[in-house]
């Protein structure tokens, strides 16, 4: 280490430390060179303000008289996890209200508490000899609680994959509203201001390091859940005192058709101890690359559409498949800047000094997928392989006969190469017959926009397609678009009663 923590802390205490934000650092290194910047700059502050689902708080409510051993507990009708102890409970930010649904959730309870609002606490119990009380209902304020400790399992992703949507329908996701046909790109993260992007080897950001957390002086517990520094997707587990937090830096949010999340403001001060730290903190948005992922694919492994830099994403517009596509940020860069500035004030005024991580972090680890001992059923296992179909040149009369004979309501329509080009239903045919168009070809009445499935698709996804599009059958096709079978609501019904299906 070329500059020790003690040296930096001494300067902070004497009021002589030079503190800059990660946004200012690239310019300083340009001007002074790396060695010059190391000499000049003592601490680089970072900041981010975005939706961080994996957050929540532990509470200790104190004991009532007679006392209760809370087995279930709610704050403003949002259920807490109370399987810890009599009056300890954890509130997760994404938990939704039992009466208001996604309009109000755990994040809203936290925001209301730190805004000084009164919260209704309810609890129930079977009653024991030592805790005889069975029900409880009381109005509480944040300062009434013994402890309210924010403890967030996963915060502050190093960077995020950006999102787009290849399908014909708008998708409502945790990455916000994704317009059809690659209509927009949504991204998150503060780019060069993001804490972990400034310390990719996790040498200075780790256990015990003091941070800005929603306006309080918090601390890093260690790497967060799902942390994957080996792929530049590291995360942090963090903690802070809810009683010291401000609603300026903690905001509840609701994503349409997704649910509740919480915007968390977080900043980490990084002591500039050596040239490597200088280089790391001089990173620019142009150097931070991320993939744009197609959320139109409903599986875990979504295809990458393009790799772009945060500079491109922040510019408001990127080029995708030869077209200009507008970008939306989910996290607030303005707030991220405010946090980095606030942290700069804290360190400059000696309110916060630097600490090295108390334990080393493994910067090579990567995240694993779930081990699934039972594979969810696939379309091929329940699809109907004996499918009656029709050529696009056949007339309506033929279609009517086939529907009757095949005892089916859907006829996939094939072209000369046996590829599915449409689907015709009993309804389409009946309508044509009433209009006395029996000699028209099937291609004139068929639906051309065929919603289909593949043999390897999970049954859950196929069921969602039927429900979303309000249809009752999906042709099953191979990669070339050739017909392999058909999946109907009835086939899905066969799975009813089996374990996987509620």
């Amino acid at each position, binding site marked *: 280490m070329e500059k020790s923590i003690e040296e930096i802390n001494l300067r902070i205490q004497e009021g002589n430390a030079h503190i800059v934000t990660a946004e200012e650092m690239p310019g300083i290194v340009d001007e002074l060179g790396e060695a010059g910047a190391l000499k000049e700059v003592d601490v680089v502050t970072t900041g981010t*303000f*975005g*939706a961080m689902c994996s957050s929540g708080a532990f509470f200790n409510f104190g004991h009532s008289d007679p006392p209760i051993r809370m087995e279930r507990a709610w704050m403003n009708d949002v259920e807490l996890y109370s399987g810890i102890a009599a009056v300890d409970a954890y509130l997760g930010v994404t938990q939704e209200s039992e009466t208001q649904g996604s309009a109000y959730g755990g994040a809203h309870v936290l925001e209301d508490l730190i805004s000084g609002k009164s919260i209704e606490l309810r609890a129930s119990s079977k009653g024991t000899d030592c805790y005889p009380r069975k029900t409880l209902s009381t109005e509480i304020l944040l300062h009434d609680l013994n402890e309210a400790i924010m403890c967030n399992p996963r915060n502050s992703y190093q960077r995020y994959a950006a999102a787009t949507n290849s399908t014909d329908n708008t998708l409502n996701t945790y990455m*916000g*509203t994704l*317009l059809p046909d690659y*209509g*927009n*790109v*949504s991204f998150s993260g503060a780019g060069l201001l993001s804490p972990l992007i400034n310390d990719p080897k996790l040498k200075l950001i780790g256990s015990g390091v003091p941070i800005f957390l929603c306006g309080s002086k918090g601390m890093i517990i260690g790497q967060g859940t799902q942390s994957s520094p080996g792929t530049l997707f590291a995360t942090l587990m963090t903690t802070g005192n809810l009683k010291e937090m401000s609603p300026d830096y903690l*905001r509840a*949010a*609701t*994503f*349409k058709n997704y649910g509740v*999340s919480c*915007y968390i403001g977080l900043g980490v001060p990084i002591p500039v101890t050596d040239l490597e730290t200088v280089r790391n903190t001089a990173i620019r948005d142009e150097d931070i690359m991320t993939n744009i992922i197609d959320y139109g694919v409903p599986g875990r492994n979504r295809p990458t559409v393009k790799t772009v830099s945060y500079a491109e994403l922040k510019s*408001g517009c990127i080029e995708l498949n030869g077209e200009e*596509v*507008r*970008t*939306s*940020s*989910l*996290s*607030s*860069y*303005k*707030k991220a*800047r405010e946090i980095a500035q606030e942290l700069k004030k804290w360190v400059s005024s000696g309110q916060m000094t630097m600490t090295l991580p108390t334990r080393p972090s493994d910067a090579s680890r990567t995240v694993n997928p779930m081990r699934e001992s039972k594979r969810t059923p696939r379309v091929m296992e329940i699809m109907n392989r004996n499918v009656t179909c029709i050529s696009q040149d056949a007339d309506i009369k033929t279609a009517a006969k086939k529907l009757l004979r095949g005892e089916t309501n859907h006829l996939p329509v094939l072209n000369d190469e046996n590829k599915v080009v449409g689907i015709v239903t009993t309804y389409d045919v009946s309508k044509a017959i009433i209009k006395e168009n029996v000699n028209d070809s099937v291609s004139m009445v068929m639906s051309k926009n065929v919603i289909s499935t593949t043999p390897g698709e999970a049954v859950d996804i196929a069921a969602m397609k039927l429900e979303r599009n309000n249809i009752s059958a999906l042709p099953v096709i191979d990669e070339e678009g050739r017909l392999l079978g058909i999946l109907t609501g009835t086939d899905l019904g066969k799975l009813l009663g089996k374990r996987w299906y509620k």
Partner: protein
Amino acid sequence: MKLLVKIHKKRGQEPIIARTVLDTGVLINVERANIESMSGEVLIEVADPEAKRVCDRLKEFGAEVERLEDSVCRNEEECIDCGECVSVCPQNVFSFDEEWNITLKTEKCVLCGKCVEACPHNALSLHQ
């Protein structure tokens, strides 16, 4: 200028927008249309100097016409300047200024409501 045109179908299926374009020679931009079985509402945009002529002609066809000055409202207390609204708006109403504050070009808004649904912070609304 944005004009909200209310049409009543009791008067038959007259193509009154097309007629108005032909008669006045003014180009009309249809921003949004909501047609029910007995009535309809069409939001059109025309150049300010031509608005009176278009308005008069539409009224002669029996339509009600009002000048639309409302636009989406932003609650500055709730807004955190994230920018989720920027790319979902079909009219490019939202953008960032140099300090990363969200700014609105309210005159472009056609009250489609897409941003209201997309805003994670419930900061946008269509009525004052």
